[in-house]
């Protein structure tokens, strides 16, 4: 990006004499401050090249001293800052001038701006301690300014540039070696709240840069928590938190140090009930980062002593727990069981606790959902580091599932999932959790399924309850099918022993009577089977309980839903996988072995006759495709290699066409096949390059090589079918250029490509460049035929980008009616897997029956990221068309856009920022853009009606 801009800037320089000179002329021409301001504004819009920065700065300074109008000086000051930011420019030379400008400046605003400029300069010269010291000194001098803006900037500057190591500072300069901490600390009680805030921020900045804060600062910061202004309190909270971390109490043996963290924790907890919600959010967030706090304090945050008429009362949570532990599940509450118990000693009740009491209780029922979310996040972080706390906060998290705002509910479900390793759900908690399954929001339900996937349930009743609720969910929302099956898969495999006693009931088998065979297509029945089969995997006694049809159903499901049903060792049944070794590690996985074996086989095909080669390739491709369907974890790998072999097969077939032996123009029909093959190979190579995640440069070379071969083929075909030599010149040239760029890009990989097409071609390169197109074609043809087949090394992990449109289902017979000329919104819901950067690459294509195609770019916000490697696209596309006489189907599909510039081989180009993207960038020359359809098209019935008059 930067390069592009520089390029254009350079072009500009050719036409204009010089930036600085032009500016000088402009500024001299300016008659009024307003004019000068206009010139400066115009000037600021254009970039300045590195070499002329200094000149421009001099001119600006010159005008600065002449100028009487404060606004112009302000602009100049800000320009100075901007200019010193220029990449490659070292502002050493202008430090003195910049500091000098401060001397006689009267306007506070200009002063503030100048200090800002100094800050920019200082940050660019971080390695120069002397300059930094000078700047800090200047800032200290201006700290007494009466304007808050100036003081703010001074503090900011000190914070950013102040010396962090005390020792060094003292040596450097005696008088300036003032304790920056003390200077900033003094401004903690400045009269202006903005300055106070700036002082705290400066202190935090120092701390971030590695300064150890003194303990005095901690007590000062604590005082700020009672400030009248919310920004001060908010920043102060942050200060207390970071102070507590790094303040080292001199006595190392005692536990003083720990107590400081606890003290700070208590103070921040107090801020959770602050009057301003900004502060509350800040406090709640910070609580999450204080994981060193002692468990005693941590548990207090969930504790709120209840009382009623001065008598102690138990919380609903305590009561629920007691009910559960007494073995009484029925929740019909008896009258008065929350009746207050013992009398409370009035003296002992502390209404405003100094400690952490009930901070989270308050935070979780805050008025603003921002605070609640922050509290849930903090809970999550603390619970992850403390299992005991995780157990305790469970009740509160479960309660949050009933929050009125969906975001909060979602967040708390996610939180629960994250801490689920540490916890086991009690039945009554599970009950509350499961009621959320009926939520109408799909996000919530799916999050809950995810949660259930990794929850520990303690009893078999719990499992049963979960299953029943999930089935209820399934009947209510059939679209959740996949998600529910997956959830049950994990539920089964996690709790085999709890599922075992439930099996007869679930399969409704009877010891004496045969029960009717359930419908195999019933999703609910499949769900039950998924649960059982996954449990059976680690519970060998379970299959004994199955009836005959269960075994049949197993075989069917193992085949059709292989990703959900694990291989089982069933009596009287030999499984391909089981005899080898019961515990297979992924590397010795037989299917992986099979993959490698079949590839080995293929690589030896050089020695076969053409007919044999073709057959072998065809078989292998078929095998691989089947393997991919069966083994979901190998699907990416298998598809990738299959595609590669397919390309090879096409190439071989094309080269064996008869057309090569016959005079060219007679066989137009045959060459259609060859050119189609070339085209298809090209397409497939793009797919290989862009549709798989995990492709490394080793593979990219092979892919590009294949593409090169396809292009050669194209060239040959064209040469044979067209008359005249003129068009060939251009093509040859282009081809040779591509070979050249291939060589440049992959120079490091060339040694591995012995005997390949490119290898031979490069040997012949000197001859090719000088020869005529017809000769080139001839050479190419022979090289293409003689070249060997390259091995495709497989990367560790390879995943194919897939997309599945869930909605619209394409099953509806009711056309979507709308008035022609107006638009109708079509809801699209799709899952994407293994798509990198979906926001930039995934498009929606709508094909109308008249062949008209429309490509829609979904908004970035429409993509959600439910898990690693997975995305969900929930968006709306607007359709419109002129009137039709009858309803017709349109096709909707997802496209993956690619751009060879963005390919993994080339270096990552930073995305243009907002302002830069406004100026259209020239598309780079060798960038090839295109789209790959990667989802099944879905048909939607629509009917644009003519508008009624």
């Amino acid at each position, binding site marked *: 990006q930067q390069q592009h801009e520089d390029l254009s800037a350079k072009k500009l320089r050719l036409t204009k004499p010089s930036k600085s000179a032009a500016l000088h002329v402009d500024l001299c021409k300016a008659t009024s401050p307003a004019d000068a301001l206009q010139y400066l504004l115009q000037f600021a819009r254009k970039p300045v090249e590195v070499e002329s920065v200094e000149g421009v700065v001099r001119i600006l300074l010159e005008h600065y001293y002449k100028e009487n109008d404060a606004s112009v000086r302000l602009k100049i000051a800000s320009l100075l800052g901007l200019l010193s930011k220029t990449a490659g420019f070292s502002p050493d030379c202008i430090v003195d001038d910049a500091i000098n400008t401060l001397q006689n400046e009267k306007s506070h605003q200009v002063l503030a701006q100048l200090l800002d400029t100094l800050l920019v300069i200082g940050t660019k010269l971080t390695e120069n301690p002397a300059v930094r010291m000078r700047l800090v000194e200047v800032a200290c001098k201006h700290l*007494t300014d009466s304007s808050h803006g100036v003081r703010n900037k001074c503090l900011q500057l000190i914070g950013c540039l102040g010396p962090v190591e005390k020792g060094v500072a003292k040596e450097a300069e005696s008088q300036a070696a003032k304790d920056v901490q003390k200077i900033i600390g003094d401004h903690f*009680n*400045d*009269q202006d709240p903005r300055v106070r805030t700036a002082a705290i921020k400066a202190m935090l900045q120092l701390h971030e840069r590695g300064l150890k804060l003194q303990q005095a600062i901690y007590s000062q910061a604590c005082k700020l928590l009672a400030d*009248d202004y919310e920004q001060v309190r908010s920043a102060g909270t942050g200060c207390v938190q970071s102070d507590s971390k790094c303040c080292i109490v001199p006595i190392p043996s005692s536990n003083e140090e720990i107590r400081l963290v606890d003290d700070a924790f208590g103070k921040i907890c107090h801020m959770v*009930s602050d*009057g301003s919600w900004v502060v509350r959010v800040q406090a709640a967030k910070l609580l999450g980062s204080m994981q060193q706090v002692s468990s005693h304090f941590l548990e207090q945050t969930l504790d*709120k*002593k*209840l*009382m*009623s*008429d*001065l008598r102690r*009362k138990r*919380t*609903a*949570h305590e009561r629920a727990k007691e009910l559960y532990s007494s073995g009484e599940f029925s*929740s*019909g*509450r008896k*009258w*008065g069981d929350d009746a207050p118990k013992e009398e409370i000693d*009035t003296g002992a*009740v*502390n*209404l*405003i606790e100094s400690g952490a009491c*009930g901070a989270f*209780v308050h935070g*979780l*029922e*805050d*008025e*603003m*959902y921002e605070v609640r979310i922050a509290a849930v996040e903090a809970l999550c972080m603390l619970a992850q580091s403390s299992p005991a706390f995780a157990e305790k906060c469970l009740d*509160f998290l479960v*309660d*949050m599932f*009933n*929050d*009125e*705002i969906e975001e909060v509910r979602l967040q708390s479900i996610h939180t629960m999932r994250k801490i689920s390793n540490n916890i086991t759900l009690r039945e009554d908690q599970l009950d*509350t959790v499961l*009621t959320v399954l*009926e*939520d*109408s929001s799909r996000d919530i339900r799916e999050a809950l399924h995810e949660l259930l996937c990794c929850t520990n349930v303690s009893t078999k009743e719990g499992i049963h309850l979960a299953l029943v609720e999930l089935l209820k969910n399934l009947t209510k929302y059939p679209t959740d099918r996949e998600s529910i099956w997956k959830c049950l898969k994990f539920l089964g495999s996690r709790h085999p022993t709890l599922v075992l006693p439930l099996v007869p009931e679930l399969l409704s088998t009877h010891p004496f009577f045969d029960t009717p065979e359930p419908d195999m297509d019933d999703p609910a029945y499949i769900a039950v089977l998924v649960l059982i089969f996954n449990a059976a995997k680690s519970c060998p006694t379970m299959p004994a309980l199955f009836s005959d049809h269960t075994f049949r159903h197993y075989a069917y499901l193992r085949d059709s839903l292989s990703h959900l049903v694990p291989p089982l060792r069933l009596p009287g049944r030999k499984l391909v996988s089981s005899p080898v070794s019961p515990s297979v590690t992924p590397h010795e996985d037989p299917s992986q072995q099979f993959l490698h074996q079949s590839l080995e086989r293929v690589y030896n095909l050089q020695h076969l006759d053409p007919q044999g080669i073709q057959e072998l390739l065809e078989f292998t491709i078929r095998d691989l495709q089947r393997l991919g369907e069966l083994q979901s974890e190998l699907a990416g790998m298998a598809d990738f290699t299959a595609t590669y072999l397919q390309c090879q097969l096409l190439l071989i077939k094309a080269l064996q066409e008869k057309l090569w032996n016959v005079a060219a123009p007679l066989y137009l029909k045959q060459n259609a096949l060859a050119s189609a093959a070339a085209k298809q190979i090209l397409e497939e190579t793009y797919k290989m390059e862009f549709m798989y995640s995990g492709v490394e440069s080793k593979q990219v070379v092979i892919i590009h090589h294949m593409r090169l071969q396809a292009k050669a083929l194209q060239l040959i075909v064209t040469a044979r079918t067209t008359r005249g030599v003129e068009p060939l010149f251009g093509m040859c040239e282009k081809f040779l250029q591509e070979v050249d760029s291939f060589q440049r890009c992959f120079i490091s990989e060339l040694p591995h490509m012995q005997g390949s097409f490119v290898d031979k071609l490069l040997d012949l390169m000197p001859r090719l460049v000088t020869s005529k197109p017809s000769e080139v074609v001839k050479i190419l043809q022979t090289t293409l035929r003689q070249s060997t087949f390259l091995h495709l090394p497989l990367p560790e992990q390879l995943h194919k980008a897939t997309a599945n449109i869930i909605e619209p289902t394409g099953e509806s017979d009711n056309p979507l009616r709308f008035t022609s000329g107006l638009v109708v919104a079509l809801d699209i819901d799709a899952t994407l897997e293994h798509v990198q950067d979906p926001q930039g690459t995934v498009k929606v294509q709508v094909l109308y029956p008249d062949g008209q195609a429309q490509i829609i770019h979904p908004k970035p916000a429409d993509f959600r990221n439910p898990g690693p490697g997975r995305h969900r696209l929930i968006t709306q596309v607007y359709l419109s068309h002129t009137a039709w006489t009858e309803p017709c189907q349109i096709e909707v599909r997802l496209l993956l856009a690619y751009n060879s510039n963005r390919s993994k081989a080339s270096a990552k180009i930073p995305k243009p920022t907002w302002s830069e993207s406004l100026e259209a960038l020239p598309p780079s020359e060798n960038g090839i853009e295109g789209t790959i359809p990667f989802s099944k098209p879905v048909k939607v019935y629509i009917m644009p009606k003519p508008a009624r008059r």
Partner: protein
Amino acid sequence: MPEIKVTPLGAGQDVGRSCILVSIAGKNVMLDCGMHMGYNDDRRFPDFSYITQNGRLTDFLDCVIISHFHLDHCGALPYFSEMVGYDGPIYMTHPTKAICPILLEDYRKITVDKKGETNFFTSQMIKDCMKKVVAVHLHQTVQVDEELEIKAYYAGHVLGAAMFQIKVGCESVVYTGDYNMTPDRHLGAAWVDKCRPDLLITESTYATTIRDSKRCRERDFLKKVHETVERGGKVLIPVFALGRAQELCILLETFWERMNLKAPIYFSTGLTEKANHYYKLFITWTNQKIRKTFVQRNMFEFKHIKAFDRAFADNPGPMVVFATPGMLHAGQSLQIFRKWAGNEKNMVIMPGYCVQGTVGHKILSGQRKLEMEGRQILEVKMQVEYMSFSAHADAKGIMQLIRQAEPRNVLLVHGEAKKMEFLKQKIEQEFHVSCYMPANGETTTIFTNPSIPVDIALGLLKRETAIGLLPDAKKPKLMHGTLIMKDTSFRLVSPEQALKELGLAEHQLRFTCRVHIQDPRKEHETVLRVYNHLKGHILKDYSVQHLPDGSITVESILIQATAHSEDQGTKVLLVSWTYQDEELGSYLTSLLKKGLPQST
């Protein structure tokens, strides 16, 4: 000494009939004007004769402020303004102004039409009374007259409930009315800025209670209702028409929708529908969720909740009924209660506070046999549940509000004496502010220490700040000047200007002091010794000069030495200073009195 006087006419160590008189800096304000639920005789209204025996009330009161529309805060308003006679302004928020007359009319109907009372206010009186009302917005400062200003803060509790700050000069009082510090399904939490009033008058209904989190309460409530309905029982929820009712409606409505339940929910008709209409209108007064989602759907447009007809009470099958009033003391809720009380499948949920003497209070305290009108005994078999959904701040909430506002004094009203006692002790202990809890008719006097703003001449200010250290906002600074009080204005000017303005000549005031020193040497030698002594290190920062005429000046202080007329060994040091240098002068004297150091 300036003082604030507070006299509760109602709600002093009591719940109900809120009416508090406040006189602050010569202004008299009446806060709330409510009736008492527990009485049907004269005691139901505050005793306005306390204010004045004869003559119009208007002459004695500058304004009346109504915090919210509950009858125990506004029930006596028409009686007060129309029957006793008050024509001054009455302040309340917009929602209160809208809903208040509906409730008053309902109250009037019950009293006059049902109980056949005479000598009660009429519909016309309610209308006339409402004409005197001035509506205010939240955080709007309303100038009642030149000095008195009031400002409303959000109080939660019910729609339109507000806390009021009453301010005269720099003395201020904050009256909370009823408020809620925890948000609920339809309203937000009370909020007040750090206004540091001289006095905070706060309600203390739940002075001795710390409540569980509202989520548990909600879940419990839903569970109870759900279970009863699944059993086929009927649920009666007595509510006051406005406030809790709407919260519970929203809660049940969303629950019904989520769980797809079919049992009917009824809401007793009449004023409720009108009131719901206002809830739909005043969306800005509700909580974050409702405010944000009303564009898609106004939460107060219920789908599952229908209007109740008396005949429905006998219908078979499960149902949920919200009926008024909330304490089961009269009206529809009592009727339904009598019908359903006999069946143990049914349930009554009391979602709020019940005043002593009401049926609600009796059943909550565990009484299973009630004596109804006409000596009839009603046996209560249905389940009785209490869900503290009452939207008052609990003890923690009250403390939280005090912490937010940082008042100098706290006064508790609207609560039971015994409970107040506890809270009072806690407040004094934890905030170190004095706390009061006057009974009805008892006057509390609070002395204030108001700061008085004074205009200072710019020249003087600059001159004085230039002396000494940099100004520090947090520390008081000593200044010298002349205060001129003319009419009601105060000005601080330099002495010279004051003299000029008043046409007076300047008089110099000097203090002279003699110090005897034993020193046998000559006078000028003594002077030199004194000079060296002073010059040496004690008065390093001051200009000490030895004048040729044999005297020493320290700044403007003159020191001369003469020999004692009788004893030549004793020298008399004459120290003279003007009154402006009093500090330095007395310091010097004391220094010299200690004598000179022996060695020279």
